[in-house]
């Protein structure tokens, strides 16, 4: 009898990971069907990397159970079902791009052709270059090539664009989508909201080791009613802003403060009448994914 897991590329079932007293992943239950592209969106320390490392068998859950195509992570890795681009990683400096990619792809039972891997990672022109002569962005492309070289059914990307400039990011996501288009399952972790919005068909928001929202980017936006009021604070104290009516969060960036509120009218009225602040350059924004994200991941 086929089990439900067979339909899922990934199944987390009540997974918890503790490091001493610190709970990195807290009772995570999540199914990811075959063929989907899912963004794990969350702030640093939310448990994204821990979850990805557990999927790869590099970390063991403290409790709970993880299945990858119906098998345990170790078996999935041994079968060559998973490819991954982890957060940190450098290459063997003395080897060329072609040598490194070909070495990794030959470890898999059913790899992609070498030239195709190089093409999909925009590395054809760099194939003969040694790893110690590559720029940071080029190294990231090689690491992407290593992740797809074995033709894995599941591709895991942990903040893959962290070291890339804007142009590299764009082509990186194009390449990822080309790989996804072959019916493969992709899970990527990011704390960039636009990346999650533009490149996935499902966003799973993770905070404090738990799933706090799960759906399309549009669904997540609509699930959080909220506005942002921002103005120039200068050197004035921000104390007391969080006590204004409707306010759920206060953030300060440089000399500008942003106040999250579900009642911008009341907040702005109180701001002028009940504080002595010199309010300059006031702006009010509607909810966007960033607001939703911040509202969802706010420390409680």
């Amino acid at each position, binding site marked *: 009898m086929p089990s439900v897991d067979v339909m899922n590329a990934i199944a987390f079932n009540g997974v918890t990971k503790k490091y001493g007293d610190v709970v990195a992943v807290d009772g995570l239950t999540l199914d990811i069907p075959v063929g989907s592209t899912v963004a794990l969106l969350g702030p640093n320390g939310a448990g994204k990397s821990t979850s990805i490392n557990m999927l*790869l*068998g*590099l*970390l*063991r859950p403290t409790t709970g159970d993880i299945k990858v195509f119906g098998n345990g992570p170790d078996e999935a*890795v*041994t*079968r*060559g079902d*998973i*490819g*991954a681009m*982890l957060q*940190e*990683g*450098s*290459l*063997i400096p*003395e*080897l060329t791009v072609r*040598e490194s990619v070909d*070495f*990794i792809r*030959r*470890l*898999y*039972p059913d790899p992609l052709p070498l030239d195709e891997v190089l093409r999909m990672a925009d590395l054809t022109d760099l194939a003969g270059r040694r790893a110690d002569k590559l720029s940071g962005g080029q190294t990231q492309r090689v690491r992407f090539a*290593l992740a797809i070289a*074995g033709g894995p059914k599941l591709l895991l990307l942990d903040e893959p664009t962290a070291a890339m400039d804007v142009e590299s990011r764009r082509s990186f996501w194009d390449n990822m989508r080309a790989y996804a288009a072959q019916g493969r399952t992709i899970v990527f972790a990011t704390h960039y909201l636009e990346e999650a919005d533009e490149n996935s068909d499902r966003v799973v928001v993770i905070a404090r080791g738990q799933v706090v929202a799960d759906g399309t980017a549009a669904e997540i936006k609509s699930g959080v009613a909220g506005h942002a009021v921002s103005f120039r604070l200068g050197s004035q104290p921000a104390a007391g802003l969080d006590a204004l009516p409707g306010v759920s969060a206060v953030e300060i960036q440089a000399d500008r403060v942003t106040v999250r509120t579900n009642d911008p009218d009341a907040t702005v009225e109180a701001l002028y009448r009940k504080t002595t602040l010199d309010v300059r350059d006031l702006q009010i924004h509607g909810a966007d994914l960033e607001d939703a994200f911040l509202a969802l991941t706010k420390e409680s």
Partner: protein
Amino acid sequence: MPHYLKIELLRMFRNKRYVIFVVVFPVVFYLLYSNLWGSEVDQATGVKASVILMVSMAAYGALAASIMSSAVPWAQERQSGWLRQLQITPLPGWAIITTKLIASMLLVLPSLLLVGLAAVLTQHVSLPVGEWFGLIGSLWIGTIPFVALGLTIGSLLPPDTAQPVAMIGMFGLALLGGLWFPVDIMPSAMKSIAHVLPSYDYASIGWNIVAGDAPETSAVLGIAGWAVALGALAVLAYRRATIRA
């Protein structure tokens, strides 16, 4: 796995530190020393210094190669994330350390063979065929404890520390083991240290062979004991380095 081995060898041949310390140094020092003292004859055995120096420098080169090609590259791979890259492929964990061991042992051969070749070409050293095989074979197999030591260092220490520790270990073993100066001219305290070191047992097997003698049992047992002890340590350290928490 053959491809993995090929990759490991390829990268070391492109590594300047390996080539200079391991391939060039022993040959250059052999040429230098044998030109200075090569024609002297050891009173006890009647063996010419050009032959004894050949054994010493080949042993030094092999010792250096086995530690240099294992400790630091392995420490770097652990820290740089390359180990993780391998751990998430179908390559089994035992294949990594086994390949490292085999690669390091193959990387010992260039210095062994080049020093031997330099001795034959410049000092006209000639040995019976059986002695050549015995010498090269024992100096080759005898590097197992040193590769194990290198892998242990690489498994336990980060690259910044592994580098000096490997260098000190390599030169310490070479000097105290009598590869640079004969143990007989050392002060007695150093002499007793030398006699318990694997590098002394290792080289003395070679010196015995070129003197036409059978290797001493104590030396063979000594090197075998070190191989077992350091091998076990290397496996434990490797497990610790690759543990999945």
